[in-house]
């Protein structure tokens, strides 16, 4: 029972790590970036290459995955994305789907089509029994990382001026410029940060979710569910949503396997009916 709860939370946290970058690009920057998974995949492949080809430690891979994806994000932002902030949402969809297609094919070409697997350091693999609850070590690690991440993000976005500058720039780019906000820099930094988070998520998720060139397409739905249910204006919304969905999914599959696959979609629709703008909607700002 508690083990299931634990697994559910861990799974939810993993979803959150993967999706929180999207909360930033889609939620805060209002850019429908369906290519989010491509950045996550980049992080995953960085980890695979570093560990399997160069034998580096998993712990080094996490920051590396973050920075490589962030750098990639920054480059793409400067060259491509920035041209589309003013474009319609549909154009953004088209553009980012194009990027996904290219990423999928490119990953296939460079890394091959098969599942990539990594070997975790021994202290992270296996499980420990604590008061009758089976705790997977890696899952515990995920939960800890995620909890820090969520707190950090929440602080940055709500307590620093950077958060409000960013939202100001999204609301009205021209006026934000006219009032002294360096919009291009704010956007580039934010986008890079969001991409970096995706990369980190990809690196962390490779162990449990697997990694192959179809990763960006396969998990796109999950990212979107988390962000949609959680709402796009806070970090705590998607965080809670991810945990809720994680627990519901795991528990549903454990207790009622026959309708397991319906649980997550059903829950999503239900929550969207009750709270169309997400868990913590900010006064219907959008």
């Amino acid at each position, binding site marked *: 029972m508690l083990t299931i709860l634990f697994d559910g939370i861990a799974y939810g946290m993993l979803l959150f790590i993967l999706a929180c970058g999207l909360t930033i690009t889609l939620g805060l920057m209002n850019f429908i970036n369906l290519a989010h998974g491509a950045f996550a995949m980049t992080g995953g492949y960085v980890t695979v290459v570093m560990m399997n080809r160069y034998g580096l430690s998993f712990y080094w891979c996490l920051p590396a995955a973050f920075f490589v994806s962030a750098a990639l994000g920054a480059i793409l932002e400067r060259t491509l994305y920035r041209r589309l902030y003013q474009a319609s949402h549909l154009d953004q969809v088209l553009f980012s789907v194009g990027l996904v297609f290219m990423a999928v094919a490119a990953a296939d070409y460079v890394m091959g089509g098969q599942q990539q697997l990594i070997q975790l350091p021994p202290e992270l693999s296996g499980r420990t029994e604590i008061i009758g609850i089976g705790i997977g070590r890696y899952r515990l690690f995920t939960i800890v990382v995620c909890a820090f991440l969520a707190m950090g993000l929440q602080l940055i976005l709500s307590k620093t001026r950077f958060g409000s*500058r960013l939202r100001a720039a999204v609301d009205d780019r021209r006026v934000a*410029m006219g*009032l*002294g906000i360096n919009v291009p820099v704010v956007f580039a930094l934010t986008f890079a940060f969001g991409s970096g988070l995706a990369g980190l998520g990809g690196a962390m998720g490779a162990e449990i979710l697997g990694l192959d060139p179809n990763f960006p397409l396969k998990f796109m739905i999950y990212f979107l569910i988390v962000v949609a249910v959680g709402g796009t204006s806070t970090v705590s919304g998607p965080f809670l949503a991810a945990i809720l969905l994680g627990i519901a999914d795991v528990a549903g599959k454990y207790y009622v396997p026959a309708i397991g696959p319906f649980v997550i979609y059903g829950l999503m629709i239900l929550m969207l009916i009750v709270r169309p703008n997400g868990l913590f909607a900010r006064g219907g700002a959008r």
Partner: protein
Amino acid sequence: MTRPLLVIDGLAAGYGEAAVLSGISLTIEEGRTLALLGRNGTGKTTLVDTIAGLTTHHAGRIHLLGQDITRLRADRRAAAGIGWVPQERNIFKSLTVEENLTAIARSGPWTLKRVFAMFPRLEERRRNLGNQLSGGEQQMLAVGRALMVNPRLLLLDEPLEGLAPIIVDELLAALRQIVRSEGISAIIIEQKARKILPLSDDALILDRGSIVHHGSSAELLVNDDVMAEHLAVSRIGTSA
């Protein structure tokens, strides 16, 4: 003891290829207010936005406190000391009143506290989101926001529109006070000349993108001919 704060020389600007302003030259001294008048569509907003760096520059120079800002990007100009109230207010809708003020704040005499003291109404609504404000409250916030930049030059595009008469009086008095005592200057656009002229030092009238009159406010106020010619009340349909 005044020195030129803003010097504009032979300025031409517009939107992309389209030219709106041409041959604009003017100087504003520290501590003075300039009323910018003209009929609809004559380029008032364009002039102010050009000073803020938000239109396409075609020719001429702009100097702020001796520094050439002609090529500076808008956000740098704000840093150099320009505070701007856009005509359509453009409150950041997903920020609260307080965040609207702090997001763009720069250090200086104007603080949150002082803005709130000037517009108590804003303090009452400090946690409201930008898009949950009444029209007049948005106008106050736009003015407060420009002050939070702690500018040397205030650009106010129809700042009185939508404000209650009593607030209009108070705001104008406060602006005068600020400009006088803190050595900053202001350009104020207003549709109703008779309302603003008694309070401003100088007046400038634009027509079809060019300056057609430049002089002291007091003189203009009694110069019915000029008023009638360039700010005609009866003619319709001359605006672009």
